[in-house]
C-alpha cells in the first residue's frame, strides 16, 4: 500500500517535472541511451518497419510504385483467401495440426518431470536428463532428414514392417500419416527440453513436505496429486496459454521440410502457404494478407484461451 503511494507520488513528480528535467536527465545519463541505441534501431528496422509494411495486404503492391504509391484495394486479398478453393482445407490443416500437437504434446513434459522427481539418486537423474535433453540440440533439418531415412520404403522401419506383413508403408507420401509423424517427432525432439521448467519447479518443493505426508500414510500417487501437481500448476497454466497462443504460428519450418508432393492434402498449412504465395510465387500482397489473417486468428485464440484458463485456474492467467 505504502509502496503504491510512493510510486504514485514519484509518477506525479515525474509528470509535473518539466520537459527540461527530462532533457537534463538524458544529458546527464546520455551513456544509457547510447547503450539502448543498437537494440532500438534493430527493433525498429526489423520489427516495426515490417509492421508498417503490413498495409500492403490492403494494397496492390508493386515494386515500381513502392508501398506508399501502390493502390488501395481494401479487402480484396482477404476475399480472395476466404473464397480460395483450398482455403478450408489449409485452414483446418493448420488448426488440426496445432490443436492435436498441443493436446498430445502438452502432458508429456509434465509426466517426464513428475517421473524424474521420483528419482532419489541425483546422479541417475542427471544422466537421464542428459539423454532426454539431447534431441533439442539436433537441427530440424537433421530430424526431418532422419525421418525421411528411417521411414523411407526401404528404410529400417519398413524392413521390419515388410518382414511382418510383406507390404511397405509409404509414410512420407501418405497424407494420413503426416500429422502423427509431425507430432510424435516433435515430442521426440522437444518434450525432454520442455520438462526442464517443471523439473525446476518440482525441485523447489520442500522434501520435508513429502516426508511428513508419507509419515501420515500418503501413497506416492497421493503425494504427486496433492503436493507435486499443485506446485507446478501455475507453470502449467502459463506454458499452456503460451503454446495455445502460438497455435497458428506453429512450426512452419518442420512442416515445410516434411512436405512432399503427395502429402500436401494434410501438410499444407497457412504458414507454408504464405511462403509459397509470397516468396515463391511473388504475390506479395496476397501473401501478406494470408499472414495477417493467420496472426489475427492467433491473437483471438490467445485471448480466448487465457480467459478460459483464468476461469479454471482461480483467476490466474497470463495477464
Amino acid at each position, binding site marked *: 500500500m505504502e509502496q503504491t503511494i510512493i510510486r504514485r507520488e514519484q509518477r506525479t513528480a*515525474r509528470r509535473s517535472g518539466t520537459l527540461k528535467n527530462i532533457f537534463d536527465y538524458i544529458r546527464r*545519463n546520455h*551513456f*544509457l*541511451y547510447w*547503450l*539502448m541505441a*543498437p*537494440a532500438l534501431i*534493430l527493433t525498429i528496422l*526489423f*520489427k*516495426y*518497419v*515490417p*509492421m*508498417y*509494411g*503490413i498495409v500492403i495486404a490492403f494494397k496492390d503492391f508493386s515494386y515500381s510504385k513502392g*508501398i506508399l504509391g501502390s493502390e488501395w484495394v481494401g479487402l480484396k486479398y482477404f476475399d480472395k483467401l476466404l473464397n480460395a478453393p483450398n482455403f478450408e482445407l489449409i485452414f483446418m490443416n493448420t488448426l488440426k495440426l496445432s490443436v492435436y500437437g498441443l493436446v498430445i504434446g502438452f502432458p508429456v513434459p509434465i509426466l517426464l518431470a513428475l*517421473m524424474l522427481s*521420483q*528419482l532419489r539418486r541425483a546422479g541417475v537423474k542427471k544422466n*537421464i*536428463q*542428459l*539423454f*532426454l*535433453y*539431447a534431441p533439442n*540440440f*539436433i*537441427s*530440424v*533439418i*537433421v530430424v*526431418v*532428414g532422419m525421418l*525421411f*531415412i528411417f521411414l523411407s520404403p526401404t528404410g*529400417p522401419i519398413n524392413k521390419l514392417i515388410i518382414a511382418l506383413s510383406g507390404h511397405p508403408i509409404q509414410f512420407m507420401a501418405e497424407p494420413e500419416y503426416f500429422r502423427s509423424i509431425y507430432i510424435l517427432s516433435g515430442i*521426440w525432439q522437444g518434450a*525432454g527440453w520442455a520438462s*526442464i521448467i517443471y523439473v*525446476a519447479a518440482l525441485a523447489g518443493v520442500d522434501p520435508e513436505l513429502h*516426508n511428513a505426508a508419507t509419515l501420515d500414510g500418503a*501413497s*506416492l*500417487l497421493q503425494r504427486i496429486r496433492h503436493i507435486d501437481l499443485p506446485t507446478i500448476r501455475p507453470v502449467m497454466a502459463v506454458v499452456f496459454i503460451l503454446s495455445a497462443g502460438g497455435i497458428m504460428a506453429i512450426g512452419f*519450418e518442420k512442416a515445410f*521440410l516434411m512436405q512432399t508432393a503427395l502429402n500436401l492434402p494434410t501438410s499444407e498449412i497457412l504458414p507454408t502457404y504464405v*511462403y509459397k504465395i*509470397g*516468396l515463391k510465387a511473388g504475390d*506479395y500482397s496476397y*501473401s*501478406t494478407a494470408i*499472414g495477417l489473417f493467420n496472426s489475427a486468428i492467433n*491473437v483471438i485464440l*490467445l485471448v480466448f484461451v487465457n480467459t478460459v484458463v483464468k476461469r479454471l485456474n482461480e483467476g490466474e492467467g497470463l495477464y
Partner: protein
Amino acid sequence: MTFKHSRFDRFILGFVYMLLTLAVLLIVVPLVYVVIASFMEPTALLNKGLSLNPADYSIEGYEKILSSKSMLNGFLNSLFYSAMFALVTVVVSMFAGFPLAIDGFVGRRFFMILFIVTMFFGGGLVPTFLVVKQLGLLDTVWAVIIPGAVNVWNIFLARTFFKGIPKELSEAAKVDGASEARTFFSIVLALSKPIMFVLALYAFVGQWNSFFDAMIYLENSRLYPLQLVLRSILIQNQVSPEMIGDRLAQAELKRLSEIIKYASIVISSLPLLVMYPFFQKYFEKGVMVGSLK
C-alpha cells in the same frame, strides 16, 4: 529419506524407472543407429542393413564428405555466422538490458513496451523480407546475422541478471569517480560473464541449427550455411556431384547416397551433441532465468 515405500508405491516406482528407460532408449536408439550406419560399407548397408560383421564396415561415407567442398564451405560459413550472431546478440542484449534494469531510467516503460509488443506482433514474412531487400542486405552475410540478433527474450534475460547485481558495487565505483561508461564496461560487464556466456551459447546453437533466414535471404550457394547444404543432401536428395567424383553414374549415386546422408548427419550434429553435456548447466540456467520474466 530413509523410510520404506509401501508395496504399491514400489510397484509404481518400478513402473517409473521402466518408462524413463524406455524414453531414453527411444532417444538413443535412432541416434546410435545413425552413427553405426554411417560407418558401414555402402553396398552392405543397402543390401543387409546394419550388420555386426567387421568386414561390412568402412569410412567411405566420411571420405566422400570430408572431400566435399560444399560441405566444408558450409561448415566454415556456419561457424562464422554462429560466432558473429552470438557476438552481436550478446552486445545488443547486454547493452539494452543494462539501462532497463536501472530504477528511474527515464523512458524505461516506453522501451519495455516497445520491446514487448514485438513478442506478440510482427510484420510477417513478406514485409520483413521487403525491408531486408530494401536495405540491400539480400544475398549478403548480414541478412543472416543482423535481423534475428535483437531478441526481446535475451534483453530480458540480461536485464534480470543486472537486477541481481548489488547496487552498492556500481555506486561505490561512482563515488570513486568512475564515469557511467567506465562502471558499465569494467565493473558490470566483468561481473556478467555467466549471463554473457549463456546468451552466446544459445545464440550460437540457435544459429548453427537454423536454415530459414539463409534459405530466404541467400541465393549464392557459396554463402550457404551447413544446414542448407544438409537440406539438399537429406531432404532434396541431391548429393552433389563433387562427392561422387567425375563418374556421375546413376548406380554410383545410388550406392553412395544413403551412406552420405548418415555420415553428414553425424558430422553436422556430433559437435553440438558432444559439447552440450559440458554446458548443460548453462543451458538450463538460460531456461530458468528466462521463465522468471
